[in-house]
């Protein structure tokens, strides 16, 4: 179906304005490529063979639990540590990796006191550099465990976390094992809801699919890594803001295996305000784009072709912002300046496009067991501005600092983050008026207005969340279920 759809674009008799056609053509090639990569990722197939079943009496390597802290509230860290202390495993040590001092956070000493109170290790870094990666590397030099397990400050593990994760390391080729991030607070507001719904798709069919290709990557938390594998690549990569993504690429290059355990084994918090969400997405976008442009997986030796495809697929996701922006601009150009990128009838295009779109959405629906929400899709689409910003900062070689995602809501109205989306909506209304004034409600004008309306509808959840307009967010279809969590 993708081939049939893209063949329509290769028919040069459809070319209207050549520049605009070229832009759209490029965009559609991108869409089809990412769709094919997605289908490749989620295609049905045999899951990787799990590690042989062994009892923990036979295999209990020493484990260092790293809880990375850089100014998070003490009560959140306390919760995580209390859960970590209750891990059901005979041979582990818990360490708080306290970066509060180098990050100039006020509570770094409280964190040290907390560690003392709870009788766990606390490694307070005094030499800055490398952000979270630097913090982890500093701890690697000071701990002895064979396996390191990394938790963010808010990610409280379930007691069975190690029991489920460690057996994979019985295979001497296992480099790391990743488990999902679950957001405890996903029902708090539309931002936490959308953030969780996006994670649900990623930690669901996508990572399960990558696992089949031995291409799961480290997601920064809830991960167990063999120390020798990590040291073999020089520790966590300190050059890239998405250090986890790049480090796992290096580990795979060395031929190590990775596994994904598709079970919620730790629970944390989603960003509760638009600014925190924005910063988190910007960091991930920038880091992934750096991998695509500076460490292109296609040219990395040691990776299999499946791994290359999967790493590229993950990186390309953050390039979609450019394409979305181009597509969104087209109706405005057509309505205001009567610039038509294609010369074929709109219905002729729809004949090819709608089945392709239907299959994409149906596949997404099926592989997520119907769990993909409109809200998560809308937030993903609306993140075009974040991805453009990340791309701009990359191309201009602007330095981006590692900003820890806030674990509690930052007060304030962040509607300014949605100004581009609001401006676009106003522009569409104006463009519609111009188009109707010029040629009445012709089929061309009607189609372009409808496309503009489509974009406005997709941007609305983002705008509503940024402005904290509950009267509007209540209209947006999202997850209804609430997962009940256990307390420590």
């Amino acid at each position, binding site marked *: 179906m993708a081939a049939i759809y893209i063949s329509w674009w290769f028919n040069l008799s459809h070319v209207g304005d050549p520049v605009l056609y070229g832009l759209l053509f490029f965009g559609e090639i991108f869409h089809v490529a990412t769709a094919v990569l997605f289908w490749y990722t989620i295609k049905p197939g045999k899951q990787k063979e799990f590690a042989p079943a062994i009892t923990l009496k036979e295999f209990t390597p020493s484990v260092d639990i790293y809880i990375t802290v850089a100014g998070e509230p003490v009560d959140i860290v306390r919760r995580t540590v209390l859960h970590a202390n209750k891990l059901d495993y005979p041979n582990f040590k818990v360490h708080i990796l306290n970066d509060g001092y180098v990050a100039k956070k006020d509570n770094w000493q409280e964190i040290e006191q907390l560690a003392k109170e709870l009788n766990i290790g606390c490694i307070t870094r005094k030499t800055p550099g490398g952000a979270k990666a630097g913090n982890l590397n500093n701890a690697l030099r000071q701990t002895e465990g064979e396996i390191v397990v990394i938790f963010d400050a808010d990610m409280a593990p379930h007691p069975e976390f190690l029991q489920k994760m460690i057996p994979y390391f019985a295979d001497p080729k296992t480099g790391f094992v990743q488990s999902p991030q679950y957001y405890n607070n996903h029902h708090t507001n539309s931002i936490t809801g959308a953030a969780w719904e996006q994670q649900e798709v990623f930690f669901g069919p996508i990572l399960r699919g990558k696992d089949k290709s031995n291409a799961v990557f480290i997601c920064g938390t809830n991960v167990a890594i063999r120390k020798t594998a990590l040291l073999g690549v020089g520790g966590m990569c300190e050059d890239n803001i998405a250090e986890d993504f790049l480090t796992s690429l290096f580990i795979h290059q060395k031929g190590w295996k990775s596994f994904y355990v598709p079970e919620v084994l730790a629970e944390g918090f989603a960003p509760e305000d638009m600014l925190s969400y924005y910063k988190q997405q910007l960091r991930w976008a920038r880091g992934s784009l750096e991998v695509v442009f500076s460490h292109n997986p296609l040219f990395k030796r040691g990776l299999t072709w499946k791994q290359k495809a999967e790493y590229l697929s993950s990186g390309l996701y953050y390039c979609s912002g450019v394409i979305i922006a181009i597509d969104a601009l087209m109706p405005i150009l057509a309505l205001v300046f009567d610039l038509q990128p294609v010369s074929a009838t709109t219905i002729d295009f729809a004949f090819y496009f709608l089945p392709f779109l239907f299959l994409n959405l149906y596949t997404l629906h099926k592989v997520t067991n119907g769990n993909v929400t409109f809200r998560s899709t809308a937030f993903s689409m609306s993140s075009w501005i974040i991805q453009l910003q990340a791309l701009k900062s990359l191309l201009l070689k602007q330095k981006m600092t590692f900003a820890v995602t806030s674990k509690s809501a930052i007060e304030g109205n962040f509607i300014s983050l949605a100004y581009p989306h609001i401006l676009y909506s106003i522009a569409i209304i104006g463009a519609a008026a111009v188009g109707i004034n010029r040629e009445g409600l012709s*089929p061309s004008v009607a189609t372009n207005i*409808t496309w503009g309306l489509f974009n406005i509808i997709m941007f609305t959840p983002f705008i509503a969340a940024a402005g904290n307009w509950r009267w509007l967010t*209540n209209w947006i279809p999202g997850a209804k279920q609430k997962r009940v969590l256990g307390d420590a």
Partner: protein
Amino acid sequence: MKNKILFALFILAIALSCIVNVYTLNKQSIRLDESQSLWVAPKTVPGIISYIAKDVHLPLYHILLHFWIALFGNTIIAARALSFVFFFLTIPILYKLAKEASDKKVAMLTVTLFVLSPFVMWYSNETRMYSLFTFATTANHLYFLRLMKTKGKKGRVGYILSAILGVYSHYFFNMMIGIQGLFVLGKVFLDSRKQNISVTKSITNNASILTVFGSLIFIAWLALSPWLFYVNAQGGSGNMQPLIEAPTSYNLFATFVNFIFGFQSQQIQAVIIALWPITAIFLFFLFTKRQSLVTASIGYFILVSILPIIVTFLASYFRPIFLSRYLIMVTPTLFFVLSVALVSMSKKISQILIPTLIVLLAVLSLYQNSSAQTPVREDFTQVSQYISQQATERDIVVASAPFTVYPIEYTYNGRARITTIPEWTRYGARPIPPFSEEELQKQIDKLKIQYEKIYLVLAYDQGYQKDIEDYMDNNFERLEKKEFSPGLQVRVYRFRYDLDKLFKEWQESEASESATMSGTKATPVINTRTASPSASPIR
């Protein structure tokens, strides 16, 4: 309380639909196809069978109509009432089908959309087989799903009866059976994957349904086979089929627009179709919902709603058969799928969309039934009234395309003779001759010496209407051009002025010749008018 209100609104929708239907029975002019049905139905049953064998349809409806008009008279109201009866009978069957597959809410919405659909309403009172076809298809779906649910134990009799009714209603019904077969086979294959067993094992597990279903469709096709043999013996069918153009992507979208919004003017339809990106929005809402609705066999409903349209579209590249009315069989299941989609959206969105759609359909139905601009409206009654008032026995009425002679004859009370271009004798179910400019000229040359004016009724362009118009405009004085409904026009041309003078001269020459020969005054016998061979038996 809320349920009672919903139920009251549901009944109101049905009542509104029935009122509009009954009102339409008498208020609209006879349509082309209706006049053909009314021309065929009074024949004897063997005569009907013989005629229909040359047509593109099946005989069941016309045989039923034959007996119906024998009981209730052959007026257009009585004839249309038979179609309305089938439409009305479809309502409880569709409700039952939707309720068994989903729930009461979806069932009520499905029926509401169905009865208010302008498209369905148009054909629910047309003297044609479409409402019978829809009734048979709906019943067949109901019993098919029961067969599937009970692995062939329940629904056998209902299935076979509805299948026989269906195969004798319309040839397209066979497509439905074929799709059901595909569905059953697909289920076997999917079961093998879901249960991780071999296909052979899955066939064994599904042996009962495979056997029962296979037997039932064999019986249905066996029942159809005598008809097929007969048609073949008659030399095949389709001799009188009008020209159907190969469909384009526009027609495909237009079909869905027709099904939901009915027949609107070209401009409105073009704008509705141009709003197709709304489908993209709808798909996003549909596939990203969270509220799951338990719906048995939604895959089946989608398959039987979409696949016939796609198959017909593709087949039309070999032989054009793509007409939206032939695909009316998908409307019940299409509205079911639409209802499921609407009900399973988030509450706030469905609370806006559902009432909006219902009100829109009701308004469009009323508009379609009353507006003169409705594209499918055929005002042959008005045409005939006009010609009756204007034309005299010295004039000739000519219908093109030839099959439009049916509705003209049915409604014409004038004194002028009626013929067709090309000249067609439809008695004996002869095929319509092909058009040629040479034959056109010969025919007109013959007519122009006999008649003073020609009343040319043009409708259903078969690809040569422009040729006729150009020829007449270039060779004769056009006195009038009048359009009665979209695509139906009358053009009046003058052949000659001097018919009276010519007649007198002829009389005198005849008289003088006779006088020369016998020395007596001869009495001229003038026979410039022959009785029309197409005198309608249905006045």
